[in-house]
């Protein structure tokens, strides 16, 4: 996509330097500006999106509770400012600490803060593992297309890919946390750490890692296929290229042709996918978070939708959009480094 952008303007004024900036830097600036303008759009859209949602959060949270009408009115007043005033206050600082979640009665970013790292840990490590293993599987499968390894790997990953996350998660939970027949239930059923264990100590890290084994494995196995199949496809595409023929003709070993020539070129599409997915890491994995009782951003979003807790939802959506936009920007910039063709 980036290949097509304003290349003609250069040919229109040959010999004239359009500025002191090198093409690489200009490319980076352009990408960054695009990202920023997208973010501004998202902030605005975000604001109006949640203003058209129905619901009376205060009424919901006070139902069945001993709060008198005056108090409810007072709570509601905080939310019932004129739209323009709300927009202005929101635009002044979308990341402001001053906005309180309705449900948690705390600044929204304080609510979100402690839930970021469980999600990053869970989805982040699953993505990393899935990428590494998936790319490796893809390379091996694609290099010897139709071979026994390819047949087995492709079929297995496809089966895993098509399984519903929550179902696979529950199977994992029942087999490895509860225990079936001779298999003892050794892993914990839920949570991120054992209460009372200091997670800042090495023993605590281990405890967290132990709690993460099942959810991360589940997610990684499901994510795997995506990377493996894309990598396989691009390796297959590269194998038919002339330059590989040349490399082989030079007498290079098969392994070397693969590792030094085919893989770096085939990695580009996978790279894009990896960075795009890293943007979505922040969004969490709602079903897996529910099955394994991990209190991350995914389950927070579901909770916030009940009510709805507008300020909290607004902040969450802003965070998710910002993460995707940022990941896209990084992908674009990385692409510029990896593939000089896109810079001009």
């Amino acid at each position, binding site marked *: 996509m980036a290949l097509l952008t304003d290349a003609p303007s250069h040919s229109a004024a040959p010999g004239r330097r359009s500025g002191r900036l090198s093409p690489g830097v200009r490319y980076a600036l352009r990408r960054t500006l695009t990202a920023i303008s997208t973010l501004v759009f998202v902030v605005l859209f975000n604001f109006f999106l949640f203003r058209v949602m*129905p*619901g*009376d959060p205060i*009424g919901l*949270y*006070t*139902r*069945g*509770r001993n*709060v*008198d*009408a*005056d*108090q409810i*009115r007072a709570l509601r007043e905080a939310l*019932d400012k004129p739209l323009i005033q709300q927009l202005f206050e929101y635009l002044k600082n979308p990341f402001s600490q001053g906005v309180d979640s309705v449900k*948690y009665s705390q600044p929204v970013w304080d609510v979100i803060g*402690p*839930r970021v790292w*469980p999600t990053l840990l869970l989805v982040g490590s699953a993505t990393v593992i899935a990428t*590494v293993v998936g790319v490796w599987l893809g390379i*091996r499968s694609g290099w*010897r297309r139709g071979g026994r390894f390819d047949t087995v790997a492709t079929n297995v990953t496809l089966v895993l890919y098509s399984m519903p996350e929550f179902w696979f998660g*529950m199977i994992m*939970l*029942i087999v490895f946390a*509860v*225990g079936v027949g001779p298999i003892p239930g050794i892993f914990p*059923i*839920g*949570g*991120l*750490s*054992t*209460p*009372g264990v*200091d997670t800042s*100590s*090495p*023993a605590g890290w*281990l*405890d967290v*890692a*132990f709690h993460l*084994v099942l959810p991360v494995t589940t997610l990684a196995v499901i994510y795997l296929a995506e990377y493996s199949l894309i990598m396989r496809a691009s390796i297959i595409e590269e194998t038919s290229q002339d330059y590989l023929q040349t490399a082989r003709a030079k007498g290079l*070993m*098969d*392994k*070397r042709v693969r*590792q*030094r020539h085919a893989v770096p070129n085939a990695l580009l599409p996978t790279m894009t996918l990896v960075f795009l997915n890293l943007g979505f890491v922040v969004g969490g994995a709602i079903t897996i978070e*529910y099955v*394994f*009782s*991990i*209190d*991350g951003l995914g*389950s927070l979003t579901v909770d916030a939708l009940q*009510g*709805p807790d507008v300020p909290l939802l607004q902040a969450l959506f802003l965070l998710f959009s910002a993460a995707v936009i940022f990941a896209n920007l990084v992908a674009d910039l990385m692409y510029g480094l990896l593939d000089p063709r896109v810079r001009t």
Partner: protein
Amino acid sequence: MRRPARTTRLLAALAVTTLATGVLLTGPASADDSSSPTPATSSAPTVFTVGMTEDIDSANPFTGIAAVSYEIFQMEYPTLTEYAASDFSTAPGLAESWTESADHKTWTYKIRSGLTWSDGQPLTAHDAAYTFNRILKGKYEQTNYSSYTDNIVKAVAPDDTTLVLTVKQPSPIMEKLAVYILPEHIWKNIDEKAVKSYKNEGTPDSPTVGAGPYVMVERRVGQFIRMQANPSFFRGKPAVDEVVFKIYKNQDALGQALKKGEIDFADSLEANVFKSLQNQPGITTLSATYSGFNELAFNTGAALDNGTPIGDGNPLLKDKKLRQALGWAIDRQTLVDKVLGGGGSVGSTIIPPMYASLHLDPADPVTYDPEKAKTLLDAAGYKVGPDGIRTDANGNRLEFRLFGRTDSSGNASQKAVQFIKGYLNAVGVAVDVKMMSSDNLTTIIGEGNFDMFEWGWVVEPDPNYQLSTFTCANRSYKDGGTIYANLSDSFYCNPAYDKLFQQQSVTTDVAARTAIVKQMQQMLYDDSPYIVTYYYDNLEAYRSDRFTGFVNQPSPDGSLLFQYGTWSYENMKPVVASAPASPTPGQTIAQGDVVQPTSSTNWALIIGIVVLVLLALGGGVWLGRGRNRDFAADDDRE
């Protein structure tokens, strides 16, 4: 070329593995050190773990509103009076005794003497006066307590053991002030601005300062809350050293965790999970009497608090005779059996029988008798039409919308509305069922856009709040062009009822007030804005092989935890294993004793090591491959 390559690869992998195991081996050693600082004299602390599916919303008693938050508050902070475990009668709390002045204008509480907060500071009547005055003066502080403090003019502590509260009008609530008394020396440093965001979460280094049986030592949002026994609690330090509330995101996980022993107690279980826990070794289940009821509610004529009609409710339901007749058409026992799986009892009035002294057992109860329902409908002028659906004299069909909730526990609402639809069809009433989220339903009810719905309430020991949901003043109201729901969801409005409501709210004589409350229940039972379908049980299960000594509230079959009070936490104790004085960790696991942290950590460590070693090995191999240019191709041969 190949052989050396493979060796380097293996070496690299080995190096990574060794590094990993090195970390692992130092890990367990330090874990053991920290968990048992003085292994020679004391055993590991007794930990009682409660599993729940909802986190607290805040640990600050001025902020938290979730039911589970109140469990934490009452463990940490005393109240002037308490609800007795046996029957919810008023019992001494921080106040030993109390008296109302002859003119009903002042209440004098005698505070226990010689008490201290958990940090050693003295606890006196001044702390209580400080707490009440803070609420009276603070706008934000009133939010959670206005129903108790609206009537209070001022709070004074003439000496360390006397608290005097001055009130505007006589009120029975003065004996039941569920206001958590806070330590002045801590909270005076948190001003009215800071209090809104004050978290009040204890840490291992600085636990919250309280005076209840437990204080908070750690909270990890969405994961767990740790509470530690308070040695200075005025009824004595509890036998169990630590109570942990652990949060699971779904009911199945809760059930499995109890079976496995990850938790010792589970509350508010769904019927199917509860069934799966029955007759399991080491587990005792209890279908506990509870204070909740469900109802089929009618739109008795939606209007604002000023009387302006709103909404699109079917006007036929304004007819009391129609609503009464429908009461005979509902088979409540089948609802209890099929919807609750037997975990409950047939409903009658809006104060559940669990509150034995307040509940009214109607003299002539409405039972399941469809023939009688038909006779009553005929008598009221609703004749069966050609298509089997009844019509009134003007030809208006008895055709109503019935709204149920999609998010009810164990899908109870879905099941209930289907049964109700069948029962009403059987007597010639057409029903159009629609399911929606509680959020949507709240809004729709508030605007009066319904005919009937299925929902429920949890009733407090003091009846004032529940009774107030039927007053004219608590119908919806309009503010800035928008209609907001208030407490009333049937839009029942009866001046005679309002008068009684006013009367009971200023009657301090218990017997006299009870009589009025029963009269109001009878009035509602006759007028039928609700058909109370059932009183549901609280399904609890716990590891009786580990803990014992719980106290039911009320006796003999009420809930063991999440009570009005901390009776179980104060009285529970570990089951003493008939084991040698110093059991080894291995034996401890075998006997299912209570020192589970060490045993689970051991397992955790072993498996953690295995998994990490595997990961490290895999990673090492991968690294070795990637770096090695002369990678052997033999493993790829087909």
